[in-house]
């Protein structure tokens, strides 16, 4: 929790008091981490952009509700999650099937075996894809707990406040997410090592 002496806190406080000129500076301070959070939450580029834009719009509308001295970024994370959940509920009620907007070769839903190449870079890329896919597949509460704790570096107490739950619940959800990613990566890694061995290609790490 910030003590209120943080420059972002002071900027947010001024913004909440109606000083709109500080928005640019506030945006510069908050946007990178907030965008990364939205990216992890929404996974897809277009959803990420929408989520990020709408979060700032809602942050602007709700600026008077900001509590002085609290961390504006944590507050923005909570708003972003609310935006994401609202959008998810909306699209769940009105599903639509769109054609692929990208090359089939770069589709994320292909299995790692299908995109396997012998080069180490590709193995790493596949593992990354597998991790992102696993992150996308897991329940939202687990994903967001993992992102806040492991990627954004919030403490369990701070993450619990952002998610409106208890510290134990946050730790448990993040641990489950971590275990799923670990299992997915070790599974992919083993299957790729096996495929590389079968095709007579030496593994880049000599395993």
């Amino acid at each position, binding site marked *: *929790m910030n003590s209120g002496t943080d420059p972002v806190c002071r900027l947010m406080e001024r913004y*909440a*008091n109606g000083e709109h000129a500080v928005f640019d500076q506030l945006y510069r301070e908050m946007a990178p981490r907030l965008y990364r959070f939205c990216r992890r939450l929404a996974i897809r580029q277009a959803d990420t952009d929408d989520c990020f834009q709408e979060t700032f719009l*809602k*942050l602007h*509308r*709700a600026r*008077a*509700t*900001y*509590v002085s*001295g*609290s*961390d504006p970024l*944590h*507050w923005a994370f*909570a*708003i972003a*999650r*609310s935006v994401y959940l*609202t959008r998810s509920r909306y699209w769940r009620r009105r599903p639509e099937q769109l054609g692929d907007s990208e090359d089939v070769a770069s589709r994320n839903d292909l299995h790692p075996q299908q995109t396997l190449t012998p080069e180490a870079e590709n193995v790493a890329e596949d593992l990354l894809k597998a991790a992102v896919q696993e992150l996308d597949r897991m329940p939202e509460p687990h994903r967001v707990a993992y992102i806040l704790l492991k990627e954004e570096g919030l403490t369990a107490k*701070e993450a*619990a*406040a*952002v*998610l*409106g*739950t*208890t510290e134990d619940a946050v730790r448990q959800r993040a641990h489950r997410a971590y275990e799923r990613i670990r299992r997915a990566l070790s599974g992919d890694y083993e299957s790729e090592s096996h495929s590389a061995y079968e095709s007579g290609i030496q593994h880049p790490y000599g395993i």
Partner: protein
Amino acid sequence: MRTASRVSIAIGVACTAILLIVTGASQLVYGQWIAGLSVAVDSRPGILMVAALVLSLASVTTLVAVWRGRGGFGLPVVTLAALAVLVTPLYASFTVLFAQHVSSSDVVVSWWGARCLSIAALVGSIVLAAFGWALHRAAPEATVGRAAALGACAGAWAGAAVFFFCPSADQQHLILGHVLPVAALTLVGALLLPRALRP
């Protein structure tokens, strides 16, 4: 206007409305300012104790429902939901199980409590609207829990209002006219307020 100022205004509006409605209706119907504390009372200390419990319940519920803490997120959803679930049984146990009124010819009430239902609905709507306005866009997470807690808060104040207004000792009247609105307002809060509370 900042949320803290809005909450202060909402508390002021709610208290004034409750005071005016209870005293006005009580004077009109029973010719007493607060009939619930003076007409057909079995035990004076007993009724004052129940009054204190009912007021404490309403105050604590309000505090929990509007409290936002240092981070601006308020209490966890589990606490808010527990509060919303517990308010109605607690109110019922204070006012129905430990009822301090006796049957009297001075008190003529309908068994289904039309007057009390109307007063509870009026007070509850005012409190719900006031706190809904105060916390407009102020709950980015645990929104449904917060909305249910605000509904319970409105229900607790509506229950307090009918407790101070009505001297009925009829159990059926107490359940339908006093306790039922508390549960109904909690439900209404949980269903209607989340959209208003989200940023």
